[in-house]
């Protein structure tokens, strides 16, 4: 077995240029030049030091870089909580349509009827899946969806004169964005511990619920991949206390078409179109974090909402929402991403989406049961429970035994040309290996992954140093994160300054 990631000694692009070279000739007006009368204090004196390179070399530079990057089309990318599924190529092609790319958000409505219809359709679809009748695509990502959801919750309470509800409760298994959004939104966060089944501890929940409870945020299945089966009870507890229920839909890939959170009493939910509905992650973004909500939260939705005027057979942007929370994006959200999600749904239909979820769940459980067999890995929390789209193994025994932890395992896996699971998350599992294969892997792929997992852990057991020194066949060896934080070299400008001081390139510490 051989695997080598492509490796080039690629310089920073700033080192490549030379004055006078051109990479692109942009469109130019035929209006005659004139003197530029920008006041001198606001006139550019030094041109920005951008590279000067011809087109072919720009392409080469980024081609090299691209090959030094693992992606979902390289192989399995089982990052738990991230739903790295295949990004259908037709979606990318459709998103290049000039009648999507070149429309301005402030164009007259009669000139954007097509995209408004598409947005409207998608709103309806997401509502159908969520079991919640209202929808907005404005949040640019999941966290923005959470933020908006919390806005809605607050607006609701305030609108009822209920200003004291400042607590948001969430299990400790929740995704980091949940507490972060909560606090950023001005709420008080209460994290409750999970029970031995990895689920919300009802007693703990009851203990913290009060007249200050604004709402409850939950991911279901949660970040352990476990379905919160007491969801109805939770729902009742919160509602009885006057709180509202937020459903973090990032893990929706487990349950599409099988569970509709609105029917379990949830008031607001965000979808991550960039997870469940196949839009690409782009090395970190963009995403699209559509939010669905119930009737009672609808008066507070952000402006504008796309609606259909039946009388005039015309779609329009409704800004007339008197109690709106305002805006959480400059325009209407990541529309070109939403379109990809829409295309995905159209290609699969209800049956296809349901089958997708079922396959994702089958794959996760298959991997889990096989990996569980490895000595040194354990399945924390009730191991009898089936998982949903992902599972979390704990490498703590291995760590205790030979000092090789989740991060070492990750590095050994990437040495072999397979991406690692999410590691060290959720925080409630210490040496967490959080695995979400998605429906884009077949049995052979999973078997191969399991095999590599076993082989590498066997190697580590023979020689723990092998694990610590991994990865091997990647473009670079194990990077030193601590050095980065200590030295904070964050731009070419800072490098140039270091260079002036004779501190660039960096010195390797003796013991490195």
């Amino acid at each position, binding site marked *: 077995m051989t695997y080598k*990631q492509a490796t080039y000694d690629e310089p*920073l692009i700033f080192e490549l240029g030379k004055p006078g070279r051109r990479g*692109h000739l942009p469109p*130019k007006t035929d209006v005659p*030049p004139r003197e530029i009368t920008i006041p001198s204090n606001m006139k*550019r004196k030094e041109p*920005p030091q*951008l590279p000067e390179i011809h087109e072919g070399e*720009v*392409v080469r530079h980024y081609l090299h870089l691209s*090959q030094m990057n*693992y992606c979902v089309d*390289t192989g399995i990318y089982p*990052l738990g909580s991230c739903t790295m599924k295949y990004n259908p190529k037709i979606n990318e092609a459709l998103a290049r349509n000039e009648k*999507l790319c070149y*429309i*301005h958000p402030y164009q007259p409505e009669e*000139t*954007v009827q*097509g995209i408004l219809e*598409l947005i409207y359709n998608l709103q309806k679809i997401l509502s159908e899946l969520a079991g919640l009748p209202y929808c907005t695509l404005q949040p*640019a990502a999941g966290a923005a969806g959470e933020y908006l959801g919390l806005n809605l919750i607050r607006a609701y309470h305030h609108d009822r004169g209920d200003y004291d509800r400042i607590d948001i409760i969430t299990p400790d298994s929740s995704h*980091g*964005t949940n507490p*972060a959004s909560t*606090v950023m939104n001005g709420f008080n966060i209460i994290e409750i511990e999970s029970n031995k089944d990895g689920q919300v501890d009802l007693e703990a929940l009851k203990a913290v619920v009060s007249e200050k409870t604004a709402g409850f945020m939950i991911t279901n299945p949660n970040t352990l991949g476990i379905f919160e089966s007491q969801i109805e009870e939770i729902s009742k507890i919160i509602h009885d206390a006057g709180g509202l229920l937020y459903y973090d839909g990032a893990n929706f890939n487990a349950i599409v078409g*099988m*569970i509709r959170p609105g029917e*379990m009493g949830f008031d607001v939910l965000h979808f*991550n179109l960039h997870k469940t509905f196949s839009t*690409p*992650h*782009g*090395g*970190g973004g963009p995403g699209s*974090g559509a939010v669905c909500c119930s009737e009672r939260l609808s008066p507070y939705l952000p402006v504008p909402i796309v609606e259909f005027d039946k009388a005039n057979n015309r779609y329009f942007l409704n800004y007339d929402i008197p109690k709106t929370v305002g*805006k*959480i994006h*400059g*325009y209407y959200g990541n529309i070109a*991403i939403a379109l990809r999600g*829409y295309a995905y749904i*159209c290609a699969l*239909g*209800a049956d296809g989406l349901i*089958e997708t979820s079922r396959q994702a769940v*089958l794959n996760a*459980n298959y991997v889990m049961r096989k990996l569980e067999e490895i000595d040194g890995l354990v399945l924390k929390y009730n191991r009898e429970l*089936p998982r*949903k789209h992902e599972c979390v193994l704990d490498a703590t025994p291995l760590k205790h035994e030979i000092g090789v932890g989740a991060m070492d395992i990750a*590095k050994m896996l990437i040495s072999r040309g397979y*991406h690692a699971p999410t*590691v060290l998350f959720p925080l409630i599992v210490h040496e967490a290996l959080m695995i979400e294969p998605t429906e884009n892997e077949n049995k052979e792929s999973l078997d191969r992954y399991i095999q590599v997992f076993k082989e590498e852990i066997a190697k580590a057991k023979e020689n723990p140093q092998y694990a610590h020194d991994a*990865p091997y066949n990647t473009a670079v060896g194990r*990077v030193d994160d601590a050095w*980065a934080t200590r030295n*904070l*070299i964050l*731009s*070419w400008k800072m490098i140039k300054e270091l260079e002036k001081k004779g501190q660039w390139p960096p010195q390797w510490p003796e013991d490195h």
Partner: protein
Amino acid sequence: MSNFSHPYIANSEQDKKEMLAELGLNSIDELYSDIPDSIRFKGKLELPHFQSEFEVKEHIEKLLSKNVSTRECRSFLGGGLLDVYIPAAQDELLRRTEFYSAYTPYQPETSQGTLHTLFEYQSMICELLAMDTANCSMYDWATALGEAALMTARINKKGNKFLYTAATAPNRKEVLKNYVSGAKLEIIEIPYDKETGKMDKEKAIELMGEGVVGIYFENPNYFGVIEDEIEEVIKVAKEKKIVVVAGVDTSSLGIMEAPGNYGADIAIGDAQSIGAGPLNYGGPLAGVFAMKFDKKWTRQMPGRIVGITLTPKKGKWAFTNTLQTREQHIKRFRATSNICTNEALMAMSTAFHLALLGPQGLKETGESMYYNAHYLKEELEKIGVKTVFNSEFFNTFLVDLKIPKDKKEEFTKFMLERKIFAGIPFSLDGETYDYLITTSYLLKKKDLDDYVKAIEEWRNE
């Protein structure tokens, strides 16, 4: 669901059977057995479905065909977005699946492509803005403004007032308002001078009192006016340790001064105007967020940051996400921001664009826009149409049209018939509309002349 087979699903029925057998299960249903029956959805979903990729394509293309693009109708719309041209080489790089189908680079050793490119993006942004450090994107300019306001409050712990000028784009104001609501930050508007359209500097200085943590202005501002009289305001801010946040039209930076050179501590904007991507009906965009380097402040930045570090091989440095302990996945409720998924691909796309454009290209596009706008302004003046503000501008100005409210739709139609998106209507008096006009570098003399002709016709009707 028997014998369901689809290109987006890897396993065949056969695989399913084999796997279930190995798990000792009879059906996938058993993996859902823990879900109470009471909450199972038993209805039939009403969702669209097409039998082939071709039909999906046809359906969506048919929808989109109802739009009229700025390639068909001359666009004078701006307001923070620019009708850019995306070079084919840039799009080819964007289509590299290695870039677009990767996740956040959690395993840096196998993700140098993303990291290296993002570092270059950060660096180019710093060069453009004369800043030292930049994050690798916020959602858009508007949310960057919200985050900037919050950050000034984190730095200046002893206050809760944030000033911003009235000449800030309305949509950004809206987002700002929303973003600061949780932090109980009070936002206070600095009026603009009715003659010049610039920030009222006396008023600004007056407002910079106790508890003010930051001040924000846009340059050129929303009216297109260049804020060239802010030296004193900035001076006072510096004295009072008020953080100066500048929002800039990034496309102006080939010919306009960089905010870092006139005193901004934090600079924000949108990379869309420098080619992060096309208009896309307003998204995805790429919020720019950059600042002067200060180790402590940098630790207060929102968003992801790529830094340089060492590898085991002497001499071989590499890239990695750094300062992650500010982020939500580690710090949870103590994080500097809730942002997780950002606009990384758009940031990378910006790097591709700027690498192709170079300083000369950036200058030329800036000049084209400047020439266009100034020519248009003069031609409008020739037919007796003035600008609202009598100040220097870059590529945008507010033209004094005073279209009555009840004529607005008619005017829009009139211009549309002439294949013109007339600009962004803006009401100063609440009764009539003036129009904010932006001239991209895609417009030619003929387009501008047609605009003037159309206005003349309208007025003669």
